[in-house]
């Protein structure tokens, strides 16, 4: 009989054998390694099974609790949201955007941003966007940074204390981008290049009536701004679309451990690519805690929700900011200066006169004529416009698929039609609506 050294005794027996040798196996009974292996393999298998069960069950338990709340009509709920007087709030926000192409979310939530988003898209696809990014890189520019929010998954840390104090931190891998508004001081800090943008002397930022964050340095980007907290996104949405939409309370749920009412907004007209917007409203305070946009194809285009939230007043030191040692500080006088500087950053934007809005509400289509080099009557090229733009447009066109009347670039939410005669029609609508708007068939 071979002796196998070092085996522990059978399970459950006290293991106090000082000799540690093999006496546990009775002499004469062959040691069978395979049987032992078969039994012991069950242990890791059980661990895997328990882990898998835990993974499956824990989120279910967490999201379980469709809490029973008093019945509320949609109107009551909307009122609750609009009368939300939350002054202080802090928490972590998860933003998950899946639009296909960045910078479109601007268009989705802020109708005003449509044209800009379209041209931004064209520029980005043509490589001009990269040049723009490079030009702004030295400035800790909030505009460029917040555009990053519009694709992929991001974590934001939000702290709000009344209308005068807000801080939003965009937590990236190995880096962070902070926007701080404290009274008449506005700061943007980019840890990647250790750069600071300072905006002083003017509160500047448009204040939401309930004290929701209105950060300085973000003129003309209501979309990006509204994205930053579920609170803002939902309030803007409710105000904008009450007339054209079916607003209903679709049930209850739980967000960040708080019980919420789910407010569902659906377009009344057909033709929109957006199927529904679901807003989760805190049952106690009326603060929107989550916004979810689903498309007609069933995909989730946008999911903004608080992962953790607290309505306690944040520590006052949160809103103090002094530029760190060695940081490159860019001073900016006021919001107007910021806007002026931002202007050449978006040279592709056509003049406001050439932009037309067709249709309304959900089926809004924005159209404008593409600037043509050497075209009669076209405004002289905006300063700083990349020379390669026509080629870039050619490339963009090649990305789309040809349809009757032009080229269609189609994403989950936004559709863009570039007609053969050089006009662009864009909207969160089906291609047919775009073609109707363009008058082509």
């Amino acid at each position, binding site marked *: 009989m071979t002796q196998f050294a070092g085996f522990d005794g059978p399970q459950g027996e006290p293991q106090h054998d000082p000799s540690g*040798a093999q006496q546990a196996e009775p002499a004469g009974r062959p040691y069978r390694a395979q049987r032992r292996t078969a039994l012991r393999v069950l242990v890791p298998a059980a661990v895997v099974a328990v882990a898998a069960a835990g993974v499956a069950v824990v989120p279910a338990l967490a999201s379980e609790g469709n809490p029973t709340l008093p019945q509320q009509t949609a109107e009551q709920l909307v009122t609750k949201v609009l009368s939300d007087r939350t002054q202080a709030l802090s928490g972590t926000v998860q933003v998950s955007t899946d639009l296909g192409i960045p910078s479109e979310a601007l268009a989705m939530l802020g109708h005003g941003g449509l044209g800009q988003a379209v041209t931004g898209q064209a520029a980005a696809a043509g490589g001009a966007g990269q040049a723009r990014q490079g030009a702004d890189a030295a400035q800790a520019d909030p505009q460029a940074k917040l555009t990053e929010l519009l694709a992929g998954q991001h974590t934001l840390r939000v702290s709000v204390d009344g209308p005068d104090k807000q801080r939003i931190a965009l937590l990236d891998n190995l880096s962070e981008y902070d926007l701080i508004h404290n009274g008449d001081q506005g700061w943007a*800090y980019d840890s990647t290049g250790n750069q600071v943008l300072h905006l002083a002397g003017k509160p500047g930022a448009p204040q939401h009536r309930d004290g929701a964050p209105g950060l300085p340095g973000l003129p003309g980007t209501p979309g990006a701004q509204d994205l930053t907290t579920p609170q803002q996104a939902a309030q803007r949405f409710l105000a904008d679309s009450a007339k054209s939409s079916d607003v209903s309370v679709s049930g209850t749920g739980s967000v960040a451990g708080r019980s919420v009412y789910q407010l569902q907004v659906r377009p009344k007209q057909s033709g929109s690519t957006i199927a529904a917007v679901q807003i989760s409203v805190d049952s106690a305070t009326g603060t929107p805690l989550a916004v979810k946009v689903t498309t007609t194809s069933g995909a989730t285009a946008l999911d903004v929700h608080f992962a953790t939230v607290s309505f306690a007043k944040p520590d006052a030191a949160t809103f103090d900011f002094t530029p760190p040692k060695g940081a490159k500080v860019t001073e900016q006088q006021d919001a107007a200066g910021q806007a002026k500087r931002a202007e050449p950053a978006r040279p592709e934007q056509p003049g406001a006169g050439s932009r037309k809005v067709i249709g309304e509400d959900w089926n809004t289509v924005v159209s404008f004529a593409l600037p043509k080099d050497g075209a009669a009557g076209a405004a002289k090229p905006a300063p700083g416009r990349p020379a390669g733009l026509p080629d870039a447009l050619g490339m963009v066109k090649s990305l789309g698929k040809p349809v009757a009347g032009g080229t269609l670039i189609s994403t989950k939410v936004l559709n863009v039609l570039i007609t053969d005669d050089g006009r662009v029609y864009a909207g969160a609508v089906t291609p047919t609506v775009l073609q109707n708007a363009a008058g082509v068939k």
Partner: protein
Amino acid sequence: MSQVEAVGPSRPQTVAAGPRRGTPAGFLALFLSELGLTFRRMRTIALLGVLALVPILIGVVVKIETGDTNGRGGGPAFIAQVTQNGVFLAFTALVVSLPVFLPMTVGVVAGDSVAGEATSGTLRYLLVAPAGRTRLLAAKFAAAMAFCVAATLAVALSALLIGSILFPLGQVTLLSGDTISLGSALLRVVLICAVVALSLAGLVAIGLFVSTLTGSGIAAMATTVGLVIIVQVLDSFPQLHAVQPWLFTHHWLSFADLLRKPMYWDQVWQNLGLQALYVAVFGSAAWARFTSRDITA
């Protein structure tokens, strides 16, 4: 095993040398012996030396290229901070060495721990000693974890040393733009070293498991290091988005979240929880294999 005990409690200790097995002291003796075995090897010293070279290399390169530091996104992480404060060299060095160098050395140590003994023919003698296989495995795991700590410290201490020579020290700017004192920055270095060492626990368990499967030390090391590379490749495919949070390398760099103010622990806890899961799964697999295996070498 209980036969000896059945003889009666009055029977004197048969093994006079060394503490009784089964007691904490007995395990400690076993662990210390494993620790000595690991750290007395020239190979281990050489691995730690190579790890200590990484920050020196980064520090010198950054110092030479210091004129052009505001390149966005170029170069290793925290490059802008390193030129302002030498302490950040420790974080940069950890970010650079965590994906490749640290797991490679850990793979060598963990992969070789059982298989290496089998290769050199010492495993069976080890098992004749009054130590059960389970306890031996636990001691080997603990020794490999001790190496993880040593490897992390080798990187961090060397980085702090070279950083203090090449760059100014003083108040440290966190990722959120807040400034903390040098003392609390060093505390964060210690905390981050602990988190980094613990994030290698899953890999140690995998290496130990692989090591029990084969009698060839080289094969076990190569498999373990290869697994690290494969997993990191998988982690880079956007199509595997659903699986990626479960890859043991996925949250490795989350230790940088401790450089924010206030610290952001979510990802760090996820990372540590995942490592604990890997230790449970592969640790028990290694146990199942090792305690029931025929030791022939």
